[in-house]
């Protein structure tokens, strides 16, 4: 039996839900992925930034955000997840967004932009649509704990 290859990189961070905590982590991820999977680093940076921003904006301000990223060895890709606790209304909205996604990420992003004028100032709801253009994403909900998994290939 072949021995399991160790991943090239694993990052696990419990992050305080504070805006200025995002950039240092995103910067590290961008730099690290640029070393190991340079053709995927920009997309990884976009996905990490948007997921962390959503977690900080809409998550429970009193609970930390769990960030996990792995660059596997043996295949070109980046796997990551962001977990945070959120208000039930926010969880429901997130589930609605996921269910509304169509099969074509570019169309989803275009539709998300078209609805912007109908949204109040300060709200974009573009983040997920943007993320799905760069990664395959899934949503897992366990009560108030929300986890978005992303696979970039």
């Amino acid at each position, binding site marked *: 039996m072949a021995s399991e290859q160790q991943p090239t990189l694993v990052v696990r961070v419990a992050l305080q839900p504070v805006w200025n905590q995002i*950039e240092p982590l995103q910067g590290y991820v961008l730099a690290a992925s640029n070393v190991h999977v340079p053709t995927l680093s920009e997309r990884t940076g976009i996905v990490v930034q948007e997921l962390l921003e959503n977690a900080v904006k809409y998550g429970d301000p009193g609970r930390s955000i769990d960030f996990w990223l792995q660059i596997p060895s043996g295949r070109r890709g980046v796997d990551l997840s962001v977990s945070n606790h959120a208000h039930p209304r926010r969880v429901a909205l997130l589930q609605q967004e996921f269910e509304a996604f169509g099969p074509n990420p570019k169309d989803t992003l275009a539709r998300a932009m078209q609805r*912007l004028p109908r949204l109040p100032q300060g*709200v974009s709801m573009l983040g997920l649509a943007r993320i799905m253009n*760069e990664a395959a994403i899934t949503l897992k909900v366990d009560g108030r704990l929300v986890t978005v998994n992303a696979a970039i290939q």
Partner: protein
Amino acid sequence: MSRLAAISALAEQSFGIAVDGQVVRFTGTLSIRNPSEVVTPFLRRVHDAATRDGLKQLTVDIMQLRFMNSSSIRSLVDWVEWIRREPEGKRYVLDFLTRPDVLWQKTTLTAIQSLGGEQVVVRRGQ
């Protein structure tokens, strides 16, 4: 002096937006939490000045903009919407100058172009 020329640059810690003739130039990394309070009002001043000056085209140079978060992309979309809502004679074209090697610029501007129709042109810079 044109109203556009009178607009002072927006200079923040991580990004800047400056008006240089008929070019609006973005630099840095635009990933602040509240662009609707900072970027959108600035772009509104630019838009109002451009319409009062009777401009037909404004170049938006984002070649030195390393990243924009989705909240700040909204500010660009709002700008396109303001133009579309103007009477036909007051509309102008936003001519985006982009970097061909930057992925987010291509994805984002393609979507904005589909939204803006003939009011949005996207060019690749050198």
